[in-house]
């Protein structure tokens, strides 16, 4: 599973144009939901926040596994949409970017690396981090907390 951490809201909105962007949000319901940075609750939260701040969020989609093309092909975006905000790890982002080359595609999370989980204890462990996060190797996090580290 891929561990992700949410980018700051400002990092997302800095890439948006309030006047011209017609936005769809495409979210994944797999690893990112377990990590706490995505899923149905986070998707709706982000959408309503953007709407409240004046952005034109036209629609949204939640896919079971956003990195699988067959699932991406089950949805039809509104023809007015010119911007996709992807609430998924980089794999889901690249799936959208490759299949919708005409859209501006914006990431909302950063990949930390591969994680294992323990549903009994409610914890995640970062096992194979990307180089930038090597210092967090073998650290444990609360499941569903979007990066809340468990201090030993």
């Amino acid at each position: 599973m891929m561990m992700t951490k949410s980018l700051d809201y400002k990092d997302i909105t800095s890439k948006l144009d309030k006047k011209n962007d017609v936005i769809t949000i495409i979210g994944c319901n797999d690893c990112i939901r377990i990590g706490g940075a995505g899923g149905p609750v986070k998707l709706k939260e982000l959408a309503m926040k953007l709407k409240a701040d004046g952005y034109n969020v036209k629609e949204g989609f939640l896919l079971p596994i956003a990195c699988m093309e067959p699932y991406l092909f089950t949805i039809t975006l509104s023809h007015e949409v010119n911007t996709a905000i992807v609430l998924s790890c980089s794999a889901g982002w690249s799936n959208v970017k490759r299949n919708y080359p005409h859209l501006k595609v914006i990431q909302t999370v950063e990949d930390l690396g591969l994680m294992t989980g323990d549903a009994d204890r409610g914890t995640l462990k970062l096992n194979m981090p990307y180089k930038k996060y090597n210092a967090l190797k073998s650290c444990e996090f609360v499941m569903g907390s979007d990066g809340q580290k468990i201090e030993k």
Partner: protein
Amino acid sequence: MMVSLRSITYDELKKQISKEDKIILWSCNTCIKYCGIGGFDRMVQLEEMLKADGYDVIGKELLSVACLESIARHHKMDPKKQDMFNEATVIITLTCEDGHDAANETFKDKKVIGITKTVGVGNFTMDRGPVLTHPFESTGLVQNEKGYTFPEVAEKCNLYPTFFDDKVEHKNAGKTVTITVNGKKINTNEGEVLLNVCEQNGIKIPHLCYEKDLTSAGACRLCLVKVKGQRGLVASCSTKVADGMEVITEDDEINHYRKTIVELLLASHEHNCLYCSKGNPCIAGSCELQGLVRKYEIDSTSFDKNEEVLPVDDTSPVLTYDPNKCVLCGRCVRACEEIAAQNNLGFINRGSKTVVAASTNKSMDQSDCLTCLACVFACPTGAITEKIIHYSGDDFKETKVRQS
């Protein structure tokens, strides 16, 4: 999905094990399956290869999500498998490195051998299969949203793009038997499941409760066949082949029984096929009941329909459970027990009131569901389906997307 490629040859694997070892094959059923290196079929293939070469494979474990240590632990703690795990000396993992780490944590007293190198994350594409889009820095590859194919990654990273010896026939370790099915002679291994042998030889036998990844149940009775010398009809999903067996899989009598069974299933509830998208080709498989309805040209059921409408459970974040479409095949129950090792699903009530329920008859979100989707991929009808949601309007209202 996590992208992993095979990192060792079959000979290198054999050098790590001995003929005295008791081996368990341990596979994930998610990303690694789409990478072509894991899943039930690959476990069966590796088991056949190892047995043919004289190694002692004592079991195969398929996990819904192998990188969840709790699932691994529950598999290990299954009371029915204690003897097997106690006897095992080697666990060969068909998983990504994450899944291998989880297996290592679970089996600290055993030798755990991995066969893969995880190189990053990527996509499963319709035209090129699995591709790597975000590689780890150690691969020397750069991010590429188009994605590197497996041959490209294998060449760059000194790995192998396919499973072991895909095109090499291994000498059959088992005893070969000859059976006759519908007048056709078939050679196969002794002890194989009759239904499987027929399907592998192009003879389709209808079934709803049988799934090759799961233990047989013989519940739906659609796979009944005639075996010479046996009293009555036998369930081919629960029958092992024996030398000299003579089988008839289809005749007027058998077809009449099958048609009756399908009509009874249709009468059990209002299946509402017109409202269900599972009739279309779906990622988790199309509706097998609809397939049977078409095969037997059933326009309507001869039996009185049960008018009771059962409540649909939409509480889970990942799936919807509609008991009105359930045919009580038990695949979801067995998937949750054998693949997810969670035992969250089971049958409750009796007779015509029997339904599948979660935990102690709780809603899905209150139950012990791990949201691993093992039950979704096992369900042959639209009873348990994954959620694909469309949000629209000022209040971002949810509607379900039908797969088509």
